[in-house]
């Protein structure tokens, strides 16, 4: 057997150990990315073989915690894919205006930029007071940053460009104040947001909501986990509710597709059928 074949077995055993010992399940993540992450962990550890990491994983909780974070790719930005937010204004906002009260679930919120983007949009559409936003992730460290809402000032320029392109009605600087090297998001954006730990691979339906954002999370999963997670998300949505995926994520080939109608094919906005 070649070294690469043995490495595949080692990686499977590593993921199995992580699951059995800590209940974090990465066994159905897309393998090529997982392999990159495990090799990265291996290189950092100074060990030679992935199998040697299993010992560390089982007996060293700090090592395990770091490894778990390594599997969480938290790369994100404010108003990522500005056209998507334009489409939300156009296609979802009119629907929300008919509700006195609604709930939104942002699954895989990473460090929160997406959550604040949506909060800003809702404020501008005078809908924020009616909203309850649940923002979840399995990465506690990212969640903590999300909750703080403090971002490097040097990123603000990019955020501002995105905000303007997304159809923002005011000025992005209305929504944060600068302190030293940081941009601190306004408290008024936070009042209706609840940040919580939730693992899409192992935890179930969260709450009945009218909108689900799950963007740039499913690309990391294999088809079977995608279908599993999509059925959880679908079950969480009320009839007529909206599901929003990432720019390169498709519902078309999934097992839940027939429960939705396509609202915006390019921006990946889908609406759960009423029947």
């Amino acid at each position, binding site marked *: 057997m070649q070294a*690469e074949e043995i490495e595949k077995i080692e990686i499977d055993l590593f993921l199995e150990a992580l699951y059995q010992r800590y209940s974090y399940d990465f066994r159905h993540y897309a393998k*090529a*990315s997982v*392999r*990159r992450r495990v090799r990265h962990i291996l290189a950092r550890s100074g060990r030679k073989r992935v199998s040697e990491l299993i010992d560390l994983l089982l007996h060293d909780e700090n090592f395990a915690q770091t490894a778990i974070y390594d599997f969480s790719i938290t*790369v994100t930005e404010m108003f990522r894919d500005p056209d998507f937010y334009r489409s939300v204004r156009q296609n979802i906002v009119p629907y929300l205006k008919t509700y006195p009260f609604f709930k939104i679930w942002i699954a895989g919120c990473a460090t929160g930029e997406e959550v604040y983007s949506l909060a800003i949009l809702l404020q501008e559409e005078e809908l924020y007071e009616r909203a309850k936003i649940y923002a979840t992730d399995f990465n506690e460290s990212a969640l903590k940053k999300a909750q703080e809402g403090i971002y490097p000032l040097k990123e603000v320029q990019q955020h501002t460009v995105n905000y303007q392109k997304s159809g923002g009605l005011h000025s992005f600087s209305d929504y944060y104040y600068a302190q030293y090297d940081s941009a601190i998001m306004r408290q008024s954006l936070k009042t209706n947001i609840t940040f919580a730990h939730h693992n899409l691979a192992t935890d179930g339906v969260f709450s009945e909501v009218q909108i689900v954002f799950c963007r740039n999370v499913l*690309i990391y999963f294999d088809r079977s986990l995608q279908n599993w997670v999509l059925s959880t998300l679908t079950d969480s949505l009320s009839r007529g509710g909206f599901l929003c995926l990432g720019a*390169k994520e498709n519902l078309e080939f999934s097992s839940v597709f027939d429960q939705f109608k396509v609202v915006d094919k390019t921006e990946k906005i889908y609406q759960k059928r009423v029947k």
Partner: protein
Amino acid sequence: MNTGIRTQDGRLFRRDGLSHRSSSVQDSRPYQAVVIGASAGGSTALMNILPQLPANFPIPIIVAQHLHPLQDGPAVLYRAQGCALTLKEAEEKEAALPGFVYFAPPNYHLLVEDDHTFSLSVDAKVNFTRPSIDVLFQSAADAYGVTLIGVVLSGANQDGAAGLNIIKQRGGLAIVQDPATSEISYMPRAAIEAASPDYILSPLEIGAKLVHLSNFLADPLPSV
């Protein structure tokens, strides 16, 4: 039967008697995919390579090209250039098939899974860029092993050098654009240094070489 070899998966291929290389076995392998890395100046090279490939080119071509984030997707750029193959952006979970040239979507890493389907990721940039050629090449080397052809074209950074080296280590074939023909020779030079490629060629020669390498795939010998 000394002119044909049956591979493990039952595919037949012919020894490449036309090769000018002494180790003609290398040129007679049943290659299953081509990965190409392009950066600054790479568009010109691609526009000289891709139109040479016939519609029945028998294996998929997968390209990671660095683009300015606001530029249009690369496939758009070549569509009008008279390439017989279908150019498209790679979609996640899509299977890599002959007849297509797949491009990494701007701002995503493109990876190939062991079952020859694509994965996309928004992981941090590698070599200051996303898509990264190294990320594509490494995953493709894992997926295709000795049956992979890697090509590094013009560019101004060292992305692709490490990846091409991995392709070589796994027994795949490595081709680098001749620095003398590259608009920016930094990337080819880095790849030559890191990977000691099998061929250093001009874009026109690369096109011809790919066609040549694929010929024995297109018309296999009848089974024995």
